[in-house]
């Protein structure tokens, strides 16, 4: 991921800030500048809940990391990786890893909370990227 693209998204990566249409109330995540329902450009920042529930998930067992760590983005993730679609509030879903658990611990409907983790290393010399991941609520 290019540095400017990562940097522009840090607000929603770090703080789960979406946007809400002032006219119809529809919430978007990631943020949008124009509402898809009524074409209104009047949207405001909308902090999302940091807790949600798992709608569905999958388990990846093939490493996403680049062992050579050269020139490419290294995805910082433990394997096996559980990727889930999480409902944070009605109609607002995010796709994110579920960490610190065994895949068999996860069920559809499980409650999860957002945590702040490293997601990317741009090679050994490049920037580090941080974002939300989720873990089961204890």
């Amino acid at each position, binding site marked *: 991921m290019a540095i400017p693209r990562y940097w522009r998204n840090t607000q929603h990566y770090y703080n789960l800030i979406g946007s809400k249409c002032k006219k119809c109330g529809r919430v978007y995540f990631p943020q949008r500048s124009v509402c898809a329902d009524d074409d209104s450009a009047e949207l405001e920042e909308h902090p999302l809940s940091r807790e949600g529930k798992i709608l569905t998930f999958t388990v990846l067992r093939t490493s996403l990391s680049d062992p050579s760590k050269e020139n490419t983005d290294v995805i910082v993730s433990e394997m096996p990786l559980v990727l889930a679609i999480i409902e944070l509030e009605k109609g607002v879903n995010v796709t994110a890893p579920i*960490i610190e658990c065994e895949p068999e611990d996860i069920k559809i409907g499980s409650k999860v909370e957002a945590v702040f983790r490293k997601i990317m290393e741009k090679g050994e010399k490049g920037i*580090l990227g941080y974002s939300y991941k989720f873990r089961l609520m204890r």
Partner: protein
Amino acid sequence: MTNNIKAGIVSYGCYIPRYRIKTEEIAKIQGQDAEAVKKSLVLQEKSVPGIDEDTITISVEAARNCLRKTNLDPGRIDAIYIGSESHPYAVKPTGTVVAKAINADPRLTVADFEFACKAGTAAVQAGLAMVKADMAEYSLCGGSDTAQAAPGDPLEYTAAAGGALFLLGKNNVIAEIKHTCSYTTDTPDFWRRKHQKYPSHGGLFTGEPAYFKHIVSSTKLLLKETGMKVSDFNYAVFHQPNGKFYLRAAKLLGFSEEQYKDGLLCPLIGNTYSGASLIGLCNVLDKAKPGDKILLTSYGSGAGSDSFYLEVADAIEELRKGCKVPDVKHYLENKKYVTYSEMVKLGRELHG
């Protein structure tokens, strides 16, 4: 090193990674007698950071825990100082990411601190000075680390991860910092040269002329400057490179088990370096009552100690009311053991 302006801790938060490795597991790899190591270091297990955890993520989690206890607008924080010897960047402050992750206003000053294991308390002293000088309404400061140890080094048993951050200010203070002082010398007990992956140390030299001399001298200096006696304190917390050093320092200074036991977490989480004495302070604040007096002395190799005299205020009861933020006990209890090879994998050493 203090004045009569009242200021102190408004809120606090800590974070300890979930993974733990038992001393037995490391002793098996190092070919040592686990029971002898456990007895010698007074250490059962240590925390291990996840593959995606570093000093930045630990600091953010601690900062968020700290702020979740208050209704404070993060925009009122004027200074963020974070101490560590494992800042992920050599050039780009950890605090810049923390500031954005807590939605602080860019109209603030940020700096990273370094002084081995006392970088966190050095940051607290600087943050306190900013508040007392009216250069900051609130400061957020403390220490976090993901400590490094070379495979086979005795440090491998203790080098752990964790952190604690404190919101300092003049209003709604839950523990007033009534006095702080430091004791610093040029002592080469432990160091890491530029570009080196792991630290080096002087073995037994890290004891008498380093840890004990500075902890005892700084604590005695604080007692002298405040006119307080050891018996005046309800709690005492010291830096804890291992359990044995902590206990010996506490006893050398004349503190009783009742006073020092709640500040000692090293046997369960290892040495969290810049976070070590500060997480101990968090555990004390989780339990303390208004009026309780706390003494804290950190230690950083190189070498120096910072001592603090804190008095718990009535506002601590208000802070605890309905508080659902994880306390130290939560982190001590929520753990998952890993094997040595899993620890290596989490450190991504397998990829060379």
